[in-house]
């Protein structure tokens, strides 16, 4: 019977199945960070258990690490609780071990979903888990990758397996060529706008179609990253030449004859012709415009040509109330043109959009210009130390600094504001991150999700602009 990519990944990892379908799924790669692992290691210690296979663990500190004052060492972490989490990860790594650990201040440290692929630690055909919902990112490499909770982190450490049930198959086809200035971020925001924030719940989504094929690995990671914002724990893209070329020569990728064998296997990681999906959605890439979220859920999204919607036109009462609440929180009036929305801060970073391609695209927009007078802060936070190094080799840091951006050390930063990079109450931000929930970037902060080029243009103009008309 023809199988989907997800069926293949699932079948190749099932260790045991209970009569009700609950399965033990073998985990190849376990990514660990400082905020969701401490309680898991404590659980192991309390039960006198050892990790099953430390070679599966790749760890880093990224969620709460400061993006300034690295010259001060650990003393630069002013928040005592953040420091405790970072030091706890250090000591857990010393006690339990890992394949590789990139601690705070290491030049290869970075956002866990940036460094996994960058190191070749994420390989096609793997199951990948991490105590972070944006683990779906790794599905760009035809992995079965999804976020788990801390109890599951402990369970995977102790048993190398996840207790789970098979999800349903969903395919999102994006066909056609994207217009200039329209990016992977706009694709995924358009998808979420279409299916809703719970549209993929209970499903693994395969992103397919010519528009997805035309994306770089960075772009595919952006799309898979936000699968969870459409409710799907796992998103994935089949293997092709782009996948293989990205991985060639990476530190933990196989070498020599083993590489050839691996590539031969990886090329089978495709949905078979005629494979059955429980649900299929198709979007026309030519119709996708630059997107901007206006509310407090990623499904509350409009195109840059639109206006802020009017709750009075919404018939469903629960939805209408949610819209009214969102507009009140966001400080927006119905029917305001999106391009009239002025922003206070700009954040370019996060596991969604902090890779070299994102920084190059944003730098091309700001080159030779200055951020607008109403912008209080414009931040660029590279996804990893290696991305930062690469960008500096290309002179991107100069371009950003000359334009009035701050060029920071890597980390999750203002995406979730667990470190000092936050929005103040009422501050409005054009952000390349993934969640516009209330208070996500700081209590009372107002987040508009956009692509890196849209964020960069908003920084220069002081308000949202249609990047397609940028010259």
């Amino acid at each position, binding site marked *: 019977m023809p199988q989907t990519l997800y069926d293949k990944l699932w079948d190749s990892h099932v260790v045991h199945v209970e009569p009700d379908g609950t399965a033990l799924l*073998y985990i190849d790669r376990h990514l660990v960070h400082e905020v969701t692992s401490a309680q898991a290691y404590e659980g192991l210690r309390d039960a006198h258990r050892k990790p099953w296979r430390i070679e599966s663990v790749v760890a880093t500190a990224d969620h709460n690490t400061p993006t300034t004052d690295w010259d001060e060492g650990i003393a630069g972490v002013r928040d005592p*609780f953040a420091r405790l989490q970072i030091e706890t990860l250090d000591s857990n790594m010393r006690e339990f071990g890992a394949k590789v650990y990139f601690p705070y201040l290491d030049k290869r440290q970075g956002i866990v979903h940036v460094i996994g692929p960058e190191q070749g630690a994420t390989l096609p055909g793997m199951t990948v888990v991490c105590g972070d919902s944006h683990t779906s990112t790794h599905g760009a490499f035809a992995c079965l990758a999804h976020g788990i909770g801390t109890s599951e982190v402990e369970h995977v450490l102790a048993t190398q397996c996840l207790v789970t049930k098979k999800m349903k198959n969903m395919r999102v086809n994006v066909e056609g060529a994207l217009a200039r200035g329209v990016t992977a971020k706009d694709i995924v925001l358009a998808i979420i706008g279409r299916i809703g924030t719970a549209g993929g719940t209970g499903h693994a989504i395969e992103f397919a179609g010519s528009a997805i094929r035309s994306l770089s690995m960075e772009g595919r990671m952006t799309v898979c990253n936000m699968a969870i914002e459409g409710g799907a724990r796992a998103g994935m893209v089949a293997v092709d030449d782009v996948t293989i070329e990205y991985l060639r020569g990476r530190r933990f990728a196989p070498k020599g004859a083993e590489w050839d064998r691996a590539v031969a296997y990886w090329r089978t990681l495709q949905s078979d012709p005629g494979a059955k999906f429980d649900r299929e959605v198709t979007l026309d890439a030519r119709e996708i415009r630059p997107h901007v979220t206006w509310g407090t859920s990623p499904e509350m999204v409009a195109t840059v040509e639109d206006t802020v919607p009017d709750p009075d036109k919404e018939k469903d009462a629960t939805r209408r109330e949610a819209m009214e609440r969102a507009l009140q929180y966001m400080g927006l009036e119905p029917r305001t043109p999106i391009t009239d929305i002025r922003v206070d801060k700009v954040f370019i970073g996060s596991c969604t959009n902090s890779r070299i391609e994102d920084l190059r695209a944003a730098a091309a927009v700001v080159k030779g210009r200055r951020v607008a007078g109403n912008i209080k802060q414009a931040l660029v936070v590279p996804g990893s130390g290696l991305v930062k190094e690469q960008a500096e080799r290309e002179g991107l840091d100069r371009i950003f600094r000359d334009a009035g951006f701050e060029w920071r050390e890597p980390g999750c930063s203002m995406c979730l504001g667990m470190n000092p990079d936050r929005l103040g109450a009422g501050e409005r931000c054009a952000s390349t991150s993934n969640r516009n929930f209330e208070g996500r970037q700081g209590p009372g902060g107002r987040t508009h999700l956009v692509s890196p080029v849209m964020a960069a243009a908003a920084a220069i103009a002081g308000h949202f602009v249609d990047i397609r008309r940028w010259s």
Partner: protein
Amino acid sequence: MDKFTVLNGLVTPLDRANVDTDQIIPKQYLASIKRTGFGEGLFADWRKDPGFVLNQPRFKGATILLARKNFGCGSSREHAPWALKDYGFRSVIAPSFADIFFNNSFKNGFLPVVLSETEVERLFHECAAFPGFRLVIDLEQQTVASADGKLVMRFEIDPFRKYCLLNGLDEIGLTLRHADKIREFEARRKAQYPWYF
């Protein structure tokens, strides 16, 4: 893990859809390395509003939260069920849940109950109409019933999850009963695809 058998509790209605885990427990409360003490941060931003349901004396001591669809969307933070439980809740009833939150709940003796939109709507009405409205959740029977027994609704749950919850079983211990199978699988995989090891 704490067992979950029968829960007879006061119900707090939270009339919002898409309640995300950033609201359930805002990031400024995630900085602990323990599993306890998160109740203080539960809905912390919303609790600043004196009119918020959790601030209303009539719902003090509630153990059941009633919510709308897609409860627990967003971040994978298990601090969300930890906070709900630490605050005193043992169960959330909603028409649907986000997958990761749903999973995390079961690991903590905390029961997410899925009822239909219509049933949930009815419960919101009952809560509004009858101060002190209580429900009895019987996991063995898979029922949610009003305290007077006049209203009885059935819910579905995976047999394996039910078994673990009813008995308060340690899932790691259960999995390790299959340790030989895991080792066999691992050896086979390593032979076939050595580059993953």
